[in-house]
């Protein structure tokens, strides 16, 4: 880190001077070397994932781990799909339903908490937020009994219920912070015009909530899709989401590795697509998760 601290903004006056080639900056080169090494650390597992998934079972041996496959063996994917395709369907239903429900609840809660502050609203909110940090192991046994007593055990609705309820804190948090940036003057103006709680939500708040909804939906979708503990405890074979099916697919000892690798790709594609296409919003949800001081 010994570069010369010359990073003045480029003004038009300077471009007039003859462009003396700047000396190769050691720091600059080091940055790129560092970036490449880091990128290798992040991408090599993905390379191995892809080449293994495309190999035929007999071509997978530990000695040729890193070599490219001879041909593209798409049957890994159809085999994996045969085993976890149904679970992918469960996950889609679960993630979409739970995400939409908790987004709507979060939006209303965030609106009520940020624009209609009442005494003790902050303390109440802190108590709500605690729910997103608890280890779910500490509520799992009563939750299991509760779900069973409702007759929902083994049904996908048990998972929907768990994800909606335990998703309320984070969705409320994101919307509350989002609406905090909406000027109170807007609300006051609407009140003077005679609008009430619901009219303001419908005419003022909801129309500008789209970015908030995008952040919350992306975040919740990813969380619900990737969740595992509830998936492992509240479901039966027919309702298991893809994370659990994948863990079973990879769990066997004598399994040929192309199958779990292809399964991992299938299970990763939805959230990965969301991330690549809407990364900006994904990062916002990520940062919102660390509360907001």
């Amino acid at each position, binding site marked *: *880190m*010994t*570069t010369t*601290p010359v990073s003045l903004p480029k003004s038009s006056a300077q471009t007039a001077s003859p462009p003396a080639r700047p000396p190769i900056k050691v*720091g600059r080169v080091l940055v*790129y070397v*560092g*970036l490449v090494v*880091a*990128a290798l650390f*992040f*991408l090599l597992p993905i390379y191995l994932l892809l080449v293994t998934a495309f190999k035929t079972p007999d071509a997978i041996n*530990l*000695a040729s*781990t890193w070599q490219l496959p001879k041909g593209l063996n798409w049957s890994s994917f159809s085999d994996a799909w045969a085993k976890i395709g149904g679970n992918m369907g469960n996950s889609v239903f679960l993630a979409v339903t739970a995400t939409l429900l908790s987004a709507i*609840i979060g939006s209303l*809660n965030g609106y009520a908490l940020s*624009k*209609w502050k*009442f005494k003790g609203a*902050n303390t*109440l*909110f*802190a*108590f709500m937020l*605690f*729910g997103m940090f*608890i*280890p*779910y*192991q*500490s*509520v*799992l*046994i009563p*939750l*299991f009994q509760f779900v069973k007593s409702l007759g929902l055990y083994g049904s996908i609705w048990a998972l929907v219920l768990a994800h909606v309820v*335990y998703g*309320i*804190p984070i969705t409320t948090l994101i919307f509350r912070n989002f609406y905090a940036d909406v000027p109170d003057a807007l609300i006051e103006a609407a*009140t003077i015009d005679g609008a*009430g*709680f*619901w009219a303001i939500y419908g005419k003022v708040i909801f129309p500008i909530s789209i970015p908030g909804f995008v952040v919350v939906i992306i975040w919740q979708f990813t969380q619900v899709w*990737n969740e*595992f503990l509830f998936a*492992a*405890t509240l479901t039966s074979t027919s309702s298991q989401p893809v994370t659990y099916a*994948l*863990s079973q697919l990879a769990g066997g000892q004598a399994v040929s*590795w192309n199958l*779990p*690798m292809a399964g991992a790709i299938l299970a*990763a594609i939805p959230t990965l697509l969301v*991330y690549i296409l809407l990364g900006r919003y994904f990062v916002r949800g990520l*940062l919102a*998760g*660390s*509360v907001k*001081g």
Partner: protein
Amino acid sequence: MRNTDRLWAKLVLAPSIILLAIFVYGFIARTGYTSLTDWGNDPVQALSLHPVIKFIGFQNYIDLFTGGLNARFRQDLISTLFFTVFFIAGCLGLGLSLALMLDRNPKGEGVWRTIFLFPMSLSFIVTGTIWRWMLQPQGGVNQLLGLDPNKFEWLTGRSSIWAFDWNKIPLITAVVVAIVLGIVAFRALREGQRTRMLVAVACAALLLIWALFVGPNVKLLPAPELHGFNIAFIGIIIAAVWQMSGYTMALYLAGLRGIPEEIREAARVDGAGEWDTYRTVVFPLLSPITLSAMIILGHISLKIFDLVFAMTGIDNATTDVPALLMYLTSFKQNAFAAGAAIGTVLLLLVAVIIVPYLASQFKTEDNR
């Protein structure tokens, strides 16, 4: 008019509050109660329709911490502490380095950022599946780096380092707390808060006296029981850092972007070199971010479950953690009361980190 609106606000919140009151606080209380019973300690009773459940007080906790059959739980606690320390250190170190490199505006910054952050969108199960294959002793990482599979066994390694006797835990705890209190006292002294300093010094002194005279004679277990850092965890830590360091990078990058260029410029005008600018201006401004990152990562680490499940399974005592043992105890062995006790211990560990964090967040908010 406004009164009805305020009523609506409360009505809208009511269902969520009731649900969370039941599903969070009610269920925690219920788990706490279950942990004080003997439900499932007798396997026959566990699954019967109307099990006979007796209240046995704190016996399950006493068994966990001092019982002859529960060495696995104690190892899990130690493992989770080691895991947390290395996981946080790895994420902070790598995340900060990545953020600092990206902050120098390299070409294709968006592409680099995407590469470093994409594992965050994956499930721990996917990550675990990939890294289990990466860390096969005969293949993956070992082949790439030319490492000897007999020395680098990764997940299958069975050795343990830094072992110490469980009987020394009260002693170690007392000394550590006394040192922390000493630091508190020192800071209070510098800020001129006499009462706080005196209280802290007194408590620290009491603890040290206890540690000197009583502590060495406290025996939790009849015989010494060694616990250390199981090196099979190194592979799991690498996978966890691979997945989560993008998060710290994003946090730090947001922090770095928030530092106005004028402040850095001013430091340079004062003659500070590049490194001095970082040391005196940038890093101090990033320290609140480091603290929140440590808290968030710490609670994730205590709860880690899926990644270990996918990498080494639930029957692998070497790489067990309390979150996994709770699942195994309650849902595979049907020992619900013991599982509830583990869940409660886990909750207390997380609460120690999270409650002060939430309290501080909302204190500052009220003062605004």
